[in-house]
């Protein structure tokens, strides 16, 4: 069974690589390359997979999942400029793809077993753009 918890954070980011020219960055990242940054109301959905416990009837305590998500992701990310304030984005381009993978890395240590296991991290930068990461090779 899959269970999913949703949370939001608002943050700014700028997608550019310092070794490239402004024109090259714009060709790669479009308007997101503006070095002054811009913001989104990001939505993150974390999905766990497991069997409901015979006694509690729960795959995982959603309140506990909310607390983990808050501590590991929302508190460090919310109302921050990711490039300047949230490693590894001081040297990793904070594309939605890389943000989803970083959220996975922050959450994965909390689910070392198979029941439940971390199944996927979905990150919506806008309503029209969603990135989903399921771990493993990138």
């Amino acid at each position, binding site marked *: 069974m899959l269970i999913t918890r949703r949370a939001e954070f608002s943050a700014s980011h700028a997608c550019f690589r310092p070794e490239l020219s402004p024109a090259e960055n714009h060709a790669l990242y479009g308007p997101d390359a503006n070095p002054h940054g811009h913001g989104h109301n990001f939505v993150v959905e974390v999905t766990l997979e497991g069997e409901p416990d015979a006694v509690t009837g729960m795959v995982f305590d959603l309140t506990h999942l909310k607390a983990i998500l808050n501590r590991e992701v929302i508190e460090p990310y919310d109302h921050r400029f990711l490039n300047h304030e949230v490693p590894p984005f001081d040297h990793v381009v904070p594309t939605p*793809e890389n943000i989803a993978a970083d959220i996975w890395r922050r959450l994965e240590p909390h689910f070392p077993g198979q029941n439940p296991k971390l199944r996927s991290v979905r990150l919506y930068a806008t309503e*029209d753009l969603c990135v989903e990461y*399921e771990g493993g*090779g*990138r």
Partner: protein
Amino acid sequence: MTRLTRRYRISASHRLHSPALSEEENRRVFGKCNNPHGHGHDYTLEVTARGPVDERTGTLLSLDALDRLVRERVLDAFHLKDLNQQSAEFAGAIPTTENLASAIAARLSTHWRQTFPGPWPELDRIRILETRNNRFETRLAPPR
């Protein structure tokens, strides 16, 4: 493995009617969608690609390239059109949303590698919401 889903909008009209069925059967099978004058929807199209993230750029694909592909091959063909009368796919086929999903999948599959040469990214999934309450999905890449 990372997946990226991009959402687009298609407003189009259609009428569901099969020449193989009688007028009465058409009304029974297709209900309100058989109205002879047609009707329209604001479809939401979701295109999903999958693959590895490029280490240097941090991206799965160029959004600009994906937007251009979908605009040129899908939106230009279907958006603000009457599907029955103005698209080659539905000259002899019924424009159900199942068939629209297949038509879009075929168009994107045909031109995918021109836009994205090489093994990655793959076209993973097409999903269309006809209304908020109906959605249709076709998976194109093999399961992993």
